[in-house]
């Protein structure tokens, strides 16, 4: 199988080229999210991102919402992964998305003022969560908040898209693809085909 070693090297070269080919500049957080490990993140002060589409106040609200949806806890979250920058980029290229985001953010602030007397960002963290829960859990749905629920679904969808397409997000999942395997990966539990006796999950 001498030929295969040459192929193996060639493939590893391609993988290396692909890894080095991250040619896209411009996103402060993505750039360093790709280059540094979690422990070093806290020490780096990125320069402030200037949103392309959102106004400053809107952008701050988007960033906060992404942070609530996928928080930084034992592992990094949406904020470290720069998810709001991704949402700003996607919105900047799509007018219908712009309208949906802008109208939704406005709805949320109006809603917050109506129920709590303040803009959303001025609320304490627990109050923010309390305001979002009826938009996110079927059992807590309230009449008249359909537009808010649609908006919450939208920003949650874009937060998931933006988070799990970063190195931080795929590391969180331990994404096993786009690697080199010398044979097609086989189920390691051949004597337990129904998988009824797997070790208990870590999570």
């Amino acid at each position: 199988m001498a030929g295969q070693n040459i192929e193996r090297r060639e493939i590893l070269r391609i993988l290396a080229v692909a890894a080095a080919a991250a040619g896209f500049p411009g996103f402060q957080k993505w750039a360093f999210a790709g280059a540094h490990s979690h422990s070093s993140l806290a020490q780096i002060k990125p320069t402030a991102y200037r949103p392309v589409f959102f106004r400053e106040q809107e952008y701050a609200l988007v960033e906060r919402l992404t942070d609530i949806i996928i928080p930084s806890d034992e592992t990094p979250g949406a904020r470290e992964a720069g998810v709001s920058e991704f949402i700003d980029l996607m919105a900047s290229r799509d007018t219908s998305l712009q309208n949906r985001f802008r109208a939704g953010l406005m709805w949320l602030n109006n809603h917050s003022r109506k129920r709590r007397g303040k803009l959303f960002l001025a609320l304490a963290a627990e109050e923010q969560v309390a305001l979002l829960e009826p938009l996110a859990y079927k059992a807590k749905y309230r009449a008249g908040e359909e537009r808010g629920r649609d908006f919450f679904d939208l920003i949650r969808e874009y937060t998931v898209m933006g988070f799990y397409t970063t190195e931080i997000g795929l590391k969180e999942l331990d994404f096993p693809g786009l690697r080199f395997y010398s044979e097609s990966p086989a189920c390691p539990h051949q004597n337990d085909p129904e998988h009824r006796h797997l070790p208990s999950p870590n999570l």
Partner: protein
Amino acid sequence: MPHRIYDVIVIGTGAGGGMAIKTLCEAGLKVCALNSGRRLDPHKDFRSHRMPWDLKYRGFGDPQTHSASEPDFPGPSEYVHGAWETEHVHTTAPGTDWVWPRCSAVGGKTNFWGRSSAIFGDIDFRAASLDGYDVDWPVTYAEMAPYYRRVEQMVGVASTVQNRPSNPDGIYLPPMNFRCLDMILQKGAEKVGVPYLPDRISQLTVPLGTHPACHYCGNCTSGCDVGAFFSAPYFLLPAAEASGNLELRTNALARNIVVDESGQAQGVAYIDRQSRREFEVYGRAIVIAASCLETTRIMLNSKSRHWPTGIANSSGQLGRNLCDHLYGIAASGYLPQLVGQPSFPDNVSDSSIAWMPRWQNLLHPREEKFIRGYSVYPDGGCWEFPSYQDEIEGFGSSFKREIKRRYPAPISMMTQIPTLTSPQNFVDIDPQAVDSYGVPTLRVHFQWGANELAMWEHSKTMCGEVMRAAGGIVDFVADHPESPGYSQHEIGTCRMGNDPRKFVTNRFGQTHDVANLYVADASLFVNVTDKPPAFSILTFSLRTSEHIVQQFRDHTH
């Protein structure tokens, strides 16, 4: 100045065209091949090894030109730039919904295909004799088997011998290994009494000739940068180019077949897409393999005093009998056994590791409430993007944790359901519309019929049962199938048959009316079967091409 006359003009360089080009060139014939798009450079154009964060829009595509809700649908792609066409060159009749993704790059859809490669058998070729619907093919399995064996050895198919009545076995490379989810679903299928087996997949589990074995990176349908699965540019065109007998013209959009005084094919008129100028190229014989609908469009647009309704259409059947595969998610959900388990490289072939081959109407052609049968592609597990977050409520740390817990567990089952021919399903030329090159567009008339919708209902029940029997949770069943055309498996608009009054071509793909005009793509096929068409396109094209070589040796052309 007298113009050059080639032996054969081949329109298209995909499965059908690529095989014709190789076979004809290797036999010493001078071939001019026309391809409507450009050549791809795998090292530059295939970005399949890029991580999503190395792509500007993370692989979702620029929202200005690409719908984020359909990130997987061929269109302007960040992984392969400029291989798929963005212009629609068809219209739809009122009430018809039809999508037509078109790949114009050299090699066509073989660059990105699903690689699933089951072959047709007599249960398909003689389906009409079995159940009384429509007509048999003009060939038998015994006749096609030697060609299938040769293509298997040329292409390399990983699978196992399975002894199933609807699926003739062939010569195989070692199969892809089953993953945890396959082991679990196979047990469920066993309890329900339906098959769950390694698919036949044209993906190299071991090296084949000069082609390396697969490295299982998993982004196959964005193009393979080492050629470890069959595509025309890696497997067919190099031999043709080495012969010195091929002239390949790229960005050459075939417009119509040019005929001589007697109505025989003389050449092809094409548009050079860069200069937008029109050229003609001449040959003694012409093979058209532009993909089912494009082939039909070119032929319908080849009108002359000899062929007032399109070339080789004395039967009136050109464009009729359009069939398709109904694709849809019959069931999806997750396997609780895998929740919270470590991630596993489930996506190492972009689908097609396992399939559930047709199990219906095998003992008797009318056991079920429908005739014929369908197959199912199960898949799931850890892909690049967590696909089931819609099913998880809420937000915050619990949401994030649940996404990770469920990451190895999702499963889904996609049906591959053949439609039956219907007088209502056909294509013609839209008298009102032309494309950006001024070429009249195709108009599609198509509806799902009762038989295929009965199979769709049946598949939803059966797939749900298999998933539940495996211990799985079904939390989604599609309300409706994907749009017609989604499978890119359309067939039937230039059907082959012995009777010139009823069929466009004879049993060799040679048009009944025009002896030097051949068709070599899925438009020939008589019915759509439960199997994907690409592998059979290769096989029928090999046979047609050798028939053409014989005609040249006999001085018929």
